[in-house]
């Protein structure tokens, strides 16, 4: 099934040289889009598990290049960039991710005799839900609070990585970077020409043409 595209033809990156992007923004976005697609911190098996988890937390459509979510988690771990606080029941984020990913593998093997990334999507979702609600048994989790790991890291880190990416901004019709130009039309149903138009059912072709002029 192809999902409905609410903002067809909109590409926030077209505004790169418009007054909505300053030099600092271009610098940051170039780095984000250029993230290496290979693991630099995680091991191969941890990486495979993580890629499969990311695919379930944010399933992405096949008709566009995917946002490389696992690469952003790996990058965050490599830099050891933290959020500024940690629930005292969790170990530091690198250890949390490594223990957690290994535990997913152990659980997958125990339940299905296969690596997590070889399970069906239904089996993967089922296992994710068990971890989410803390219904787990593998000793591999050790002291790691599985439910907390799920909410703070699996959901927290992966979802934040997705909505930091321009591809997701196109999808939700977010104007994206806006400095120095900002916005002019503040009231409901008023659109600045550098904001996308939303397409109702059947309007995709016409709106797509309009959105290609958004810049």
């Amino acid at each position, binding site marked *: 099934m192809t999902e409905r595209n609410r903002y067809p033809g909109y590409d926030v990156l077209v505004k790169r040289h418009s007054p909505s992007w300053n030099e*600092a923004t271009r610098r*940051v*976005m170039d780095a984000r889009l250029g993230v290496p697609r290979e693991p630099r911190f995680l091991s191969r098996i941890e990486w495979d598990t993580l890629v499969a988890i990311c695919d379930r937390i944010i399933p992405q459509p096949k008709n566009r290049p995917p946002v490389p979510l696992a690469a952003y988690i790996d990058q965050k771990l490599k830099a050891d960039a933290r959020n500024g606080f940690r629930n005292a029941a969790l170990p530091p984020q690198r250890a949390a991710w490594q223990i957690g990913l290994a535990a997913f593998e152990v659980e997958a093997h125990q339940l299905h005799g296969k690596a997590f990334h070889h399970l069906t999507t239904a089996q993967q979702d089922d296992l994710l839900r068990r971890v989410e609600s803390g219904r787990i048994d593998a000793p591999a989790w050790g002291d790691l609070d599985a439910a907390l790991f799920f909410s703070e890291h699996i959901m*927290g880190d992966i*979802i934040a990585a997705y909505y930091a990416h321009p591809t997701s901004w196109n999808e939700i019709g977010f104007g994206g970077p806006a*400095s120095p130009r*900002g916005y002019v039309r*503040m009231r409901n149903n008023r659109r600045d020409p550098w904001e996308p138009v939303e397409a109702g059912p059947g309007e995709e072709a016409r709106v797509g043409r309009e959105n290609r002029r958004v810049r």
Partner: protein
Amino acid sequence: MYDNPLTTPRATHGRAPDVFHPGGWVPMREYPQREAVDFVVIGTGAGGGPLLARLAERGYSVIGFDAGPYFRPLEDFASDETSQSQLFWTDERLVDGANPLKMGANNSGRAVGGSTVHYAMVSLRFRPEWFRSRTLLGYGADWPLDWREMWHYYARAERDLAIAGPVSYPWGPKRPRYPYRAHEINGAAEVLARGAEAMGYQWSETPLATVSAPRGDSPSCVYRGFCRVGCATNAKQSQLVTYIPRALAAGAEIRDMAMVGRIAVDAAGRACGVHYHRNGAWHFQAARNVIVAGYAIETPRLLLNSATDRFRNGLANSSGLVGRYLMTQSNQAVYGVMDDMVRWNKGPPSLTITEHWNYNDRKDFHGGYCWMAQGPLPVEWSAAMSTSRRLWGAALREKMGDYNHQVGLKMVGEMLPHLDNRVTLADETDRYGLPIARVTYSWHDNDKAMIQHALGEMQRSLELVGVRDLWRQENDTNHLAGTARMGFDRETSVVDADCRSWDIPNLWICDGSVFPTTGGVNPSLTITALALRTADRICVQARTGEMRK
């Protein structure tokens, strides 16, 4: 080459960044480390900024230390949520208790200018009775201050920050006209207004610290809506573009990327300087007076980390209250969807407000709250949605598709002070080898009652104007206070009304941590007003000889 302010200090060699001109510099006085300066101020935020400016303007030699970088907003600030986490205090802190706080992006900054560099600019005054809430309203603790005096300093803070607000504000005693006209409201803010009217409550444009017309080198706000991750145009009147430049012009020095690890005390038991880490090494700066303004986590942490044989429980802590009575504010929200194209991210996030329940006492819990319109950016929004509604997978992506139709109301509510909500030192250490903070927080019955009341009220007001698919964000808090409370005597407080510590006469604490109660409005304007008052009190005490006592 991009000169990275996070790795190399910028305020050096007799000059500091000119935040208004790309690549520009302003001259900066520098003081030798071995000669004692009149004042060292630790932290350059809502409290530290005004102190630096006022003390320098009165002719004192003063140095402002900040652990964070000296940003040039025009050049360093991307329009991007993720990379702008460079503004936050991201060194580890442990959180626990029944309702662990979220820190980082949610609670504290690290930069010259402090948290005002990323705050949402909402600039409100306390309700006068809150300064005497124990006596007049029957809860919390009294402040040793007179509200009329605070009213005078609020007015001065509003002028200094060119607050843009309405011609007449609906609540509280008369106040002067706001210096700048109120900002135009956006679609999301209009929903608050219509909802309030439907309930018979008053509403107002929110007084904001971003200019609605040019001011000096600040252009007027362009409604880009990235305020909470730093304003790249300098419309926002943060301390970085207001008090800090004033301080420099008056002869203050700023030491950026300078983490103070310890306040030194001499044989007589007086503060005599600070040990700080800068450029990869520890240094010592001698001082005649030390003022701590590091906010409600770092201030108690520093005082506790500065323990000596004489002050075994940390400095200024004979009462045992340093780190105690930590308060946050409840920040719950109700969100929903409209058919209209709203695009709530346009403009500052909280353009309208109702303080109805701050000034109405017909309720069955203590304390007050206000609510404001909302406009979160995508990363923050996805975190609120996914954690509150336990959404992930296709269901999350589908709901995120409504981003441009979303509206919401968010409370800022007064949580009551409790002894056991506190900051202590953990066993873990940070990159400087200093023990990190453990932050313990649990909501109490009164807090929970207020939250439920507010959620019900906000929900009803959205229902009345036809917002659909409503849901509640039940678990969010923001802003900090307490941990070094001011009071009437040395047994029950850490500092006196002048923010001077009871134990060490030349050690002051002047930031959000001195609040005995936190009120139902955002705290910064009160912190700034208090700092302006403290600067005046210091000058008076110096004149009358009280300083030497």
